[in-house]
Structure formats: structure tokens, C-alpha cells
């Protein structure tokens, strides 16, 4: 896709689209895996294993946090794989050292969306609603995050929406670190990501506590 849009992008005076797109695609692979691994609570519930954990003498929030950290690690590793592929395909970060803090931002994104997945998984009792969530939550979050387009010069309404999308800050943060250009500024990105992640972890813990079987 990067090659496809590349010529248009260049003509618009925005430089190399591959460079621009890579952080967005890394973010995409993370959000999909993360939300899905959170939702896997539903599988555990259907296979009965969730009962074993919920009846165990362990505080529910630690079960939730453990699950979320596990899911987030998997999602981060997938993001890393996509990043390595993008290096092979011609994406060159502004500074190779920036890759390390970028991994940290990737982990934050993963943590955030795994907790979102866990919240959804705690509320649903079967996989029927899964397509709905893909179509009406994950897709919009991805498309409205600035993963595919620059956040500068957007129409007012769209700019407000992108500001409300947590993924925007994640991808902007990656761009900031890997390309050295961004929209919100790295500190705002990380602050926003951390705050939202914290909030969703708390919320996830709350909903996980309330699961009834």
C-alpha cells in the first residue's frame, strides 16, 4: 500500500510515504493482536479454564493484570516483527538508537489495547459479538488514528476525533521517535498513552472482578 499511495503522497509534498506509513502499520499490527488477546478471556470462559482461575485464592485484579501483561508482550513482539520487516523493505529510522524507546511506546500501545480487549471479553459471554467489535471498534480506531494520514491540516471535526482516539498518540509517538517528526510532541504522546492505559487497566480490573459464571 505504501508503494501504491507513495506517488500521490510525494506529489503532495510530504516526502516518502513508506517512511510515514511504517509506524502506522506497526501500530496496526499491535492493536489487532492486543485487542484480540484481551478478548481471549471469552475462550477461557467457554473452555471452562476461567472458572479454575476465578475460584483460586488470587485477587482478581492480579489475574487480570497478568493476562494483560502476557497479551501485551505477544502484541509487542508482533509489532517488533513488523518493524523488522519494514526495515528490510526500506524503512530507515532517523536514529537507530530511537528503536529502543520506540519499543517502549509499542508496549504501552499493546498494554492499552489488551486492557480494552479484556474489558470487552469480560462483558461478552461468547464470540458472536466479535465481528461487531472488529468492525465498529478496532477498525475505526485504526483508521481514525492518523496511521494512514498526517494529522496536520485535518478538517476540524476529524481533528477532534483523532484527538479522542488513543491510538493516535501511540502512532504519533512512534513517528516522533523513529522519524523525528510528529504532531503532538513525544511528551504529550507518552503522557496521554500512560494515562489512558492506566485508566483502562483499572476499568478492566473492575469489570474482571464482576465476571459471573
Amino acid at each position: 500500500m505504501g508503494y501504491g499511495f507513495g506517488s500521490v503522497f510525494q506529489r503532495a509534498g510530504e516526502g516518502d510515504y513508506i517512511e510515514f506509513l511504517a509506524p502506522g502499520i506497526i501500530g496496526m499490527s499491535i492493536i489487532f493482536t492486543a485487542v484480540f488477546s484481551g478478548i481471549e478471556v471469552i475462550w477461557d470462559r467457554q473452555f471452562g479454564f476461567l472458572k479454575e482461575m476465578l475460584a483460586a485464592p488470587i485477587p482478581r485484579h492480579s489475574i487480570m493484570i497478568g493476562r494483560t501483561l502476557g497479551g501485551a508482550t505477544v502484541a509487542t513482539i508482533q509489532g517488533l516483527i513488523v518493524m523488522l520487516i519494514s526495515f528490510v523493505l526500506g524503512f530507515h529510522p532517523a536514529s537507530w538508537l530511537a528503536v529502543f524507546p520506540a519499543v517502549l511506546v509499542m508496549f504501552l500501545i499493546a498494554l492499552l489495547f489488551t486492557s480494552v480487549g479484556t474489558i470487552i471479553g469480560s462483558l461478552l459471554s461468547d464470540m458472536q459479538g466479535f465481528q461487531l467489535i472488529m468492525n465498529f471498534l478496532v477498525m475505526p480506531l485504526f483508521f481514525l488514528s492518523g496511521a494512514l494520514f498526517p494529522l496536520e491540516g485535518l478538517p476540524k471535526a476529524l481533528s477532534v476525533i483523532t484527538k479522542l482516539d488513543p491510538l493516535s498518540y501511540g502512532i504519533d509517538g512512534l513517528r516522533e521517535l523513529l522519524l523525528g517528526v510528529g504532531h503532538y510532541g513525544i511528551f504529550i504522546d507518552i503522557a496521554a498513552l500512560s494515562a489512558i492505559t492506566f485508566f483502562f487497566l483499572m476499568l478492566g480490573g473492575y469489570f474482571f472482578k464482576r465476571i459471573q459464571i
Partner: protein
Amino acid sequence: MIEVKNLTKKFGDFTAVDDISFDVKNGEIFAFLGPNGAGKSTTIKMLTTLLSQTSGKIKLNGYDPKTDSDAVRRSFGIVFQDPSLDDELTAWENMEFHGALYDIPKKVRRERIEKLIGFVDLTDRKNSLVKEFSGGMKRRLEIARGLLHHPKIMFLDEPTLGLDPQTRNHMWEYLSGLNKTEGTTVFFTTHYMEEAERIAQRIAIIDHGKIIAIGTADDLKQKTGTSSLEDAFLALTVFYWLWGTVLVLFFKEPARGII
């Protein structure tokens, strides 16, 4: 050890457990008998913090499952009616995970796992993934896992369902042993009358969400003038059903406990 007062659980309009009260003493073996859908599993779920009641009070080992759920969870162990193993782990890993969850010291854990896995005849398959197991093997592993830690109260929800006679006998022996040596309170549900009669000190019969009789096997037989627990059970449930129908038809009031 277990105190239940006016416990009720409603799912929408349907009342699964209807105003039941009973006590189980420390060190007692207590059986819950009832037809399918009588409310046995729902009661166990409420006792084990997996479900919260609509109304009524529960005290388990002195703690309330609603407000003191962590303390309650430390007091009991449970064997579920339906599968609750992790299919992607091996038999050994499932045991090990359970042992870690329940904080059993490593040395004791290893010894007990080895012993229990032998006990349910899975030693040569202990490193196979559970998803490769047959239904009966899974059931046996589940029982072994339930016996891994030694709680104050042991809940078993139809533990012997789909279990071969050898393992069934093994399991009851093991549980009776625990009951004698460690004073473990055992609370189980079953469809096998002879099992309840042989093992339980007291039996409660539950039907349509209500406890219709409670007492020793002899009490129940005496009350109904029958010679076996199975007949007593059938007499009670049929009589209860008739009585309920009469009440609803002629007096327009729902049935209450009668015995």
C-alpha cells in the same frame, strides 16, 4: 463451616434457587441430591464466589463470599462439573499451575502431583497435552487436580460423572482419608444414590430450587417409609411435585418446603 440462610438466585424471571437454608458442620460430609436443573450447581457457584446471590446470606468458614471473597477462596477447593482444564498445557503443567495458584510449597507439590497422577493412572501420559486426552482422561486429571491442595472445605460438583469405578473408589477413599486426618469438610452433589448413602453423613434433597428434605440417609428413608434412598428420593420429588401442583391449582400459592 457452611451457613446458608434464605439464599435465593433469580435469572430474570426464573428462580434457580429459591429461599434455601442449611448448615454444614465442620468436618462433615454433606451431599446435595437433586434432579437435573434443580439448582445444585447454582448453589455451589454462589458458595464459591463465582456467582453472587439475589438475596440471602452465606457464611463460609466464617466469611461472606460477597464481601470477603479472597478469604473465602482461600478456604475451599473445588472440582467442577464441566471441564476447566487448560487444553494447551500438559497434564503435568495443569497440575503444576494449580499448585502454584494455591501456593503449595514446591517440594510438597511435586510429591503430591506425582502421587495423584499415578493415582488416576495418567503417569505415562503426564507430559501429553490435555487436548489430546479422551473425555475420561480429562475427567480423571480434573479430579487429581482438585485433590492437589488440602483446603478446609472441598466442593465437588458431580465429581463421579463419567468417571470409571476404579477412579471413583480411589477418589472417595482419598477424600474420606482427608476428612479423617485433616478434618476436611466435604460438600458434593451427585446423581448416584448409593454414593450419597455410602459416603455422606447428611443429605439434602433439592428440587426446583428448594430444599425439600434434609437429614441422614436413614432419616430420609424413615420419613418416606421406603427401603432405599433411591425410592426415598423419588417419593420425595414426586410427592413434592404433586403437592406443588395442588397448591398452585387450588390455593394459587407457590409451594414451600414441606418436610
